């Protein structure tokens, strides 16, 4: 039986934004499953173990099993007839598939948004306001002697951030790993990430901005009202000590999570943190990095940006890209009832979005692509079961620090890839649009 066991070295896990590319996979080709994922964390092990070939129809229309071609036809028809079609998701698929989704958006004059808008979208807005001093993760490994985690719980959401990139790992100027670093954690509650920290600062809920702003004032030597202690729950002495540590370290890093982006203040919370890192460069080298969620959400940001000039929340109604979060982002286009059709790729808004948005998804024709059964797939008019990226499908993904990595798929899937389905939809959309345009042109000629 040995010939039906395959090993894949240096494979990449696409579960979270760490995108660790040192997986050694053992694959049972008969059973279509990965039996062992060496080096994977608890999340990665589940990711590899659970993505087997399930017995699901490759395509359904209104829950009825159909051929992929028929589903493509119906999907194209929905998109071509819509006046405000939205395309959403895209963070759990390859850049190659993302590019096809953008091409469709261009053809149908739709609205394109990714899961970034409900993840670090606010950090993206903040970035557009203040810029960002940042780095690839290897710099943290090699150089960072001060690492601050703010408003996130990587211990549970990004388990190998600590061991592979940022805390215990040894690097060029950090020969002893954690011993050579000082770790600070700032959060509203203790989490599984807290024990790793040399210093835990518990900030009152909703006071992250005030604390960051106070640190900025201290870094710049500016006036600060003593009420800040009461407001943030953090002693002024603690703030001053932290500021001193930040100014005197050699290479400081601020990692931040959705404790900043999802709470009141949103992009201004992220902006305050980015500005703090920028300010500190007057004294030493300091960088910041949002800890991104899904495997290729950073790739989605990159592809949407290079294609349209904007990272997410892009509308093409006028035949060219426009950007406006709050207007063209998916929570808004759904809960306001703007969208009249939705193409959702590798994401499950029907399970995670605010109630009002989910209710609108029930009212409009939805096309869903996902390797797994989801709430969104359940309500979709057209649902495709696709092969899983990184497990069955090759392509490119970007790590949270913008480093692109090529996938090494483990075994073949009977299902088409997202890219294949999207390419088929794109081609059919183009044909339908040409047909639609022709009678008009003919009229004009006459």
């Amino acid at each position: 039986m040995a010939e039906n066991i395959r090993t894949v070295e240096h494979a990449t896990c696409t579960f979270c934004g760490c995108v660790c590319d040192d997986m050694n996979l053992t694959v049972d080709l008969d059973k279509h499953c990965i039996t062992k994922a060496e080096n994977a964390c608890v999340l990665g092990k589940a990711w590899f173990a659970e993505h087997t070939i399930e017995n699901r129809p490759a395509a359904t229309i209104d829950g009825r099993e159909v051929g992929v071609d028929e589903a493509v036809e119906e999907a194209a028809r929905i998109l071509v007839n819509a006046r405000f079609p939205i395309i959403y998701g895209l963070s759990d698929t390859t850049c190659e598939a993302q590019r096809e989704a953008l091409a469709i958006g261009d053809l149908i004059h739709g609205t394109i948004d990714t899961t970034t808008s409900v993840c670090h979208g606010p950090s993206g807005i903040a970035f557009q306001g203040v810029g960002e001093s940042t780095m690839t993760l290897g710099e943290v490994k090699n150089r960072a002697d001060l690492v601050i985690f703010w408003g996130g719980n990587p211990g549970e959401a990004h388990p190998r951030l600590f061991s592979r990139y940022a805390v215990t790992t040894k690097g060029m100027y950090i020969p002893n790993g954690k011993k050579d670093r000082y770790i600070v954690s700032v959060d509203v509650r203790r989490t599984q990430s807290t024990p790793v920290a040399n210093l835990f600062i518990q900030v009152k809920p909703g006071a992250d901005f005030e604390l960051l702003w106070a640190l900025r004032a201290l870094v710049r030597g500016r006036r600060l009202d003593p009420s800040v202690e009461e407001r943030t729950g953090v002693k002024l002495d603690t703030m001053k000590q932290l500021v001193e540590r930040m100014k005197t370290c050699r290479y400081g890093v601020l990692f931040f999570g959705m404790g900043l982006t999802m709470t009141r203040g949103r992009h201004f919370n992220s902006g305050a943190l980015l500005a703090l890192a920028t300010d500190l460069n007057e004294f030493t080298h300091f960088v910041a990095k949002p800890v991104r969620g899904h495997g290729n959400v950073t790739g989605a940001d990159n592809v949407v940006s290079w294609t349209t000039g904007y990272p997410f929340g892009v509308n093409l109604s006028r035949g060219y890209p426009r950007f406006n979060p709050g207007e063209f982002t998916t929570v808004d286009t759904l809960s306001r009832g703007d969208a009249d059709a939705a193409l959702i790729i590798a994401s499950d808004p029907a399970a995670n979005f605010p109630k009002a948005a989910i209710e609108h998804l029930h009212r409009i024709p939805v096309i869903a692509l996902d390797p797994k059964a989801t709430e969104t797939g359940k309500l979709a008019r057209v649902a495709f079961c696709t092969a899983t990226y990184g497990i069955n499908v090759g392509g490119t993904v970007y790590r949270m620090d913008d480093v692109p990595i090529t996938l090494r798929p483990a075994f073949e899937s009977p299902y088409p890839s997202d890219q294949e389905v999207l390419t088929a939809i794109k081609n059919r959309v183009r044909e339908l649009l040409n047909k639609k345009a022709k009678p008009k042109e003919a009229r004009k000629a006459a």
Partner: protein
Amino acid sequence: MAETMLLVAGRTSKQGTSLSAGKLKEEYLGVTSTVEMNADDMTRMGLKDGDAVRLRTSVGETVVQCKGRKATDLPAGMLFIAYGPPSSQLMGSDTAGSGMPLSKNFTVQVERAA
């Protein structure tokens, strides 16, 4: 008698691993239907692990099971839940020109579900 508390939604390992298994599977639905609560608050409210509580905001409500956490881990008046369909029921949809609904740190009314 409902009490006002602050709900934090977030990710957990268990949510992550059960997510890979499938979001319509029992384990995932279980993980996302459990709210962590300060143990002292629970005692005061006469709640024990596994009891059903109703969480309500101006947007909607949901019934989930509660689970106690030490006061050092979770301050009094704070709740934690893994993202999922139950937390969605409580979220408002106004993104204030950002695209992001407030998904963490929002006030909820908490009471024992009958």
